[in-house]
Structure formats: C-alpha cells, structure tokens
C-alpha cells in the first residue's frame, strides 16, 4: 500500500516537471507548426544555468527566474536569427532546431563538464511531509503545486488577456488573424521565448529530482514528444493530462519492469496513434 502511494506521489511530481516541458512545446507547435526538437536542450541548459546561479550563493527562486530569463532570451535569439529566415518551411525549421539542439547540448558539455551534478532542494522545502502516516519529500509536492500554478497562469494568459486572444486566433487561422491585424511575427517571438523560458525553468525545478547530466536533453525530448502526441498537438489541456499519464506509466514501469520501462512508456503513444491520430484533445491534424 505504502509503495503504491509513494510511487503515485512521485508520478505526480514527475508529471509536474513534464508539464513545464510539454506546455511550451505544445504552445510553440500550436502557433508556429514546428516541433521544436531543441526543447530538451533548453530544459537541460536551464538546469545548468540554475545550478551555476545556486553555486554562486543565490536562492532557489532566483535560480529558477534566472534560468527562465536566460533560456527565454536564448530562445528569442534563435527564433529571430535562425527560424525567422526559414519562415514558411516547417520541415527546414524543425531540422534547424535539431541543429540548435546539438549546439546547445555540446556547449553545455563543454561549459559544465561530463559529470552528473546533484542539486539540493531549497532549504524551505527540504523537509518531509507526513501524509497518512507516510513520509514524503516536501519538495516533490511543491513541484506539483508549482506546475499547477503554471498551468493556471498559462490558462489565464491564453483565455483572459488580449495577447492570449491573439495567440488563439493565430493558432486557429493564421492568415485570417494576420488579415485583421494580429502581429504574427511578434507573436512568434513572444511564444517561442515563453515556451523556451518554461522549459528552462522546468529544468531547474526538475534538477533536485532528476539531477543534471549530459544526455538529460535526449532523455527528456522523447517524453515531451510522447506527451504531446498523446494529448494532442497545440492543446494545453492535452499537455496537462498527457504529462501525468506519461509520468504514471514511466514511474511505475521503471519500478515494476525496469528492463522494459522504455517500451511500456511508448505503448500509449502507439495505441493513441492507432485509434485517434490527432491525440486526445488535438484539433490540429498535422
């Protein structure tokens, strides 16, 4: 009983991490129609940035914000310098993001070395919570809360603000939106910055759980892909539910069938593709 409970809570925490990664991925896909294959690299780069900020003695929240800002700016530069020049050719853009992913990953290896680095959770949250007589690290609960806050924030942004209206309009019908004066070019940069910043923040948030190591990017990218294929491309609700479904399957799979956890992880993707190719909540058929 305790095993199932603890594993479930672990899955919820991992789901929270996956959501910060997949939400940006899904948002970028929804608006720009490109699969950002450098998303895992932004996640890892954010984690390393956060690590450096922490090593300089700043607090955890500063590290999260700094990583979000740093990675967001990097994403903005990539969007302006590389992706912008390939506008209209999604496939070339996707391949360019793959190139960017290699450059970022190898730069991180160069800057921070090849040894895995552990990050301790912030002092305030380093204790353990008592739930039904079971001890559970407080930090993992905080991650879950954080991801829910992010989800609410994104929902408010998309649903209640003018910016959100413009983004949704462009997702639904880009040409029409441009026709009525939505500055699509500016939106692309904003959304790309936002999506990559979320990934960067997610990297720091995940660091105390997953630790930071070269290859983290390649580990996370397929998870983000599976989440959005499951939840539907460009759907925030899909990304949210998909993240937790995948997190549960991954956490339990790793404990129950450690050798085959990776295969089990991709089974829901295969089933969804066979039954409902556009994903659980997807509207876009790509």
């Amino acid at each position: 009983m305790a095993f199932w409970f603890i594993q479930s809570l672990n899955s919820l925490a991992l789901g929270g991490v996956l959501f910060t990664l997949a939400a940006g991925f899904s948002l970028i896909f929804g608006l720009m129609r490109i699969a950002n294959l450098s998303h895992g690299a932004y996640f890892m780069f954010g984690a390393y940035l956060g690590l450096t900020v922490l090593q300089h003695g700043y607090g955890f929240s500063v590290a999260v914000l700094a990583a979000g800002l740093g990675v967001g700016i990097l994403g903005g530069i990539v969007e302006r310098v590389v992706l912008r020049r390939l506008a209209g050719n999604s496939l070339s853009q996707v391949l360019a993001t793959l190139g960017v992913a290699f450059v970022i990953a190898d730069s991180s290896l160069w800057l921070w070395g090849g040894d895995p680095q552990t990050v301790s959770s912030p002092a305030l949250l380093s204790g353990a919570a008592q739930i039904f007589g079971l001890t559970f690290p407080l930090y993992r609960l905080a991650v879950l809360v954080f991801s829910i806050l992010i989800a609410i924030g994104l929902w408010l942004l998309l649903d209640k603000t003018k910016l959100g209206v413009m983004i949704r309009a462009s997702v639904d019908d880009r040409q029409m939106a441009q026709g009525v004066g939505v500055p699509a070019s500016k939106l692309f940069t904003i959304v790309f910055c936002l999506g990559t910043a979320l990934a960067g923040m997610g990297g720091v948030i995940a660091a105390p759980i997953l630790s930071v190591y070269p290859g983290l990017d390649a580990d996370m990218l397929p998870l983000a892909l599976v989440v959005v294929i499951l939840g539907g491309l460009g759907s925030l609700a899909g990304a949210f539910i998909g993240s937790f479904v995948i997190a549960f399957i991954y956490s339990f799979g790793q404990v129950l069938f450690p050798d085959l956890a990776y295969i089990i992880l991709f089974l829901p993707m295969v089933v969804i593709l066979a039954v409902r190719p556009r994903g659980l909540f997807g509207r876009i058929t790509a």
Partner: protein
Amino acid sequence: MKRAAYAALLVLLFSLPWWIGGVYYVNLASQILIAALFAMSLNLLVGYAGLTSLGHAGYLGLSAYTSSWLMVNLGWGHLASASAALAGTTLMAAMFGLIALRATGISFLMITLALGQILWGVAYRWAGVTGGDNGISGLTRPSPFGLDLGNPNYFYFFSLTVFLLVWGLIAVWVASPFGASIRGTKDQPRRMSALGFNVWLIRWTTFIASGFLGAVAGLMYVYYQQFISPHSLSLANSAEMLLMVIAGGPGTLSGPVVGAALVVLLKNVASDYIDRWVMLLGFVFIFIVMFVPGGIVAGIARLGSSSMLLRKLRGTKPDLQPGAGHAGNAP
C-alpha cells in the same frame, strides 16, 4: 561520353587500395561506403517519398544487435545470423511503418524519432540481453568464397560490391513505374489518390524497403566495427544520417553519397583538431538547412548560374520545395 566517365570511375574505385596509399585511407573509404549505404536507404524515404524520418539508426541497431547476439550467444554462422538480422529488421520496419504512417510531415518525424528512441532505450536498459552500455563485441567478419574480410582491402572490395548492388537496385527501383508513383505521392498525394493509387501502400512499401536496406547497412556497419553499443542507435546518429541526405541532396541518386563522404571526412578530419564534433554537426546542420536547402549537388549547380547564396545571405526567402512547406499537408 557519360559511359566512359562511369567506367573510369569504376576502375578508379576498384583500384583504390593501390593508389590511395595506406590502410588508414582504405578503411576510411570503407566507412564512407557504409555511411553512403545508410544515407541511400534513408533517402528512399526522405528524398523520394517525402517522409522525413529521424529514427533510421534504429535499423542499424536492430540488425547489428540481432546478428551479433545470435553469433556470440548462440554460435550461429554468418549466413544464418545475417539472414535472421535482415528478416527481423525488415519485419520491425513493417510494424513501425504501420504506426508511423498514421501521419505525414512533422508528426511522422516525431513518431519515427520516438520509435528510434524506443530501440535505443531497449538497447541501453535491457542489459541482460544487450549488455547495456557495454554493448556486444566478439563478432567476427565473414569469409565469403574464402576471402578473409579481416583484411582491410578485401573488406573494402566487399563494401564496394554491396554498395554498387544497392546503388543499382535503387536506380532501377526509382526509374521504374513504381518509383514514379512514389515521387507522385510525395508531390501530390491527393491527386495520386484520386487517380486510384493506394498512397498508403506505396508509402508503406517504401518504408519497408528503406528499413531493409538500412538493415543491410547495419550489417556492414557491425562487420566493420565488430562491436555494437547503444551509442550507435542514438538520436545524434539518426540525425547524422539525415544530415548526409539533406546535405548531399535528397531525392537524387548521388546526393546521399556525396553527403556521406562529406560527413565522414569532416568527422575524421575535425576529430583530429577539436573534440567538439557534435557542436560542429549542429552548426553544419543549421548552415545547410539555411543556405543550401536543396543539398550540395543541386547547390553547386545553382551557384554556377546565379548568386543564390548572396541573395540568401541578404535574407530573401529561400525558394521552397513543393509539398515541404506545410505541416498540415495531410493527404
């Protein structure tokens, strides 16, 4: 005239060990031929069918692991293990095709990436069978017709023979009516469908053929290396193969070969000076995609006629390949 040029090229290729000066270069030539096999098999999908796959290294891995495992653990002979590896990988390609061809465009790319990562994950985590991170070693090179392929020169001739066979096969296939229908499904899937062609079946057949030739390349790879580890199945390796196709010229016969030669030479030369090969790979990728979108073979031809590159650098929109422009271009 053209025939004479081809004949001269063949003579040059078959006499390579005598004029290239050194075992190192003979091995490098074998590496290029094997890389070209990968690129050519991937080109069937990427260039002719217009389906960009990022999971091609999976076939390399499956074929290499199957043959190695059967030989090392069960003591099978070369012929039996190679046949089993080819059959098994082709079967896997058929199953992957069923999944991946639910989509086209960028979704297809994402699914093939995910499938490739599954195979990588199996190789890496299922340590009881695959040896985990250590991989499998102990495989020997075969000796067809009594020729010991442990000799670099003989191995080069063997690679060249396989390469020419596959080249011929692809050339015939692409020129056939079926090849024309593949290109048709790339450019105009709806019209092909309206004309009564089974677009899905054409794509699936191509997918399987690409997997089979990928398995052939995987066998050559593992015979050359005599070692296989999860690293060979990584996303970076799949991306490298895709780079060869895109850099050389997708949808052409010689493009992938040129791309393979470029990548292998670059990798070998670069690794002598810097150990940041992955970063270089990334920059080359971005550069090729941004400035040489049709590949080097086409790019050189165009560069001769106009100042294409200059206009690109000034930020004019690159001319797009038909059909590649829209992610939502579903059939």
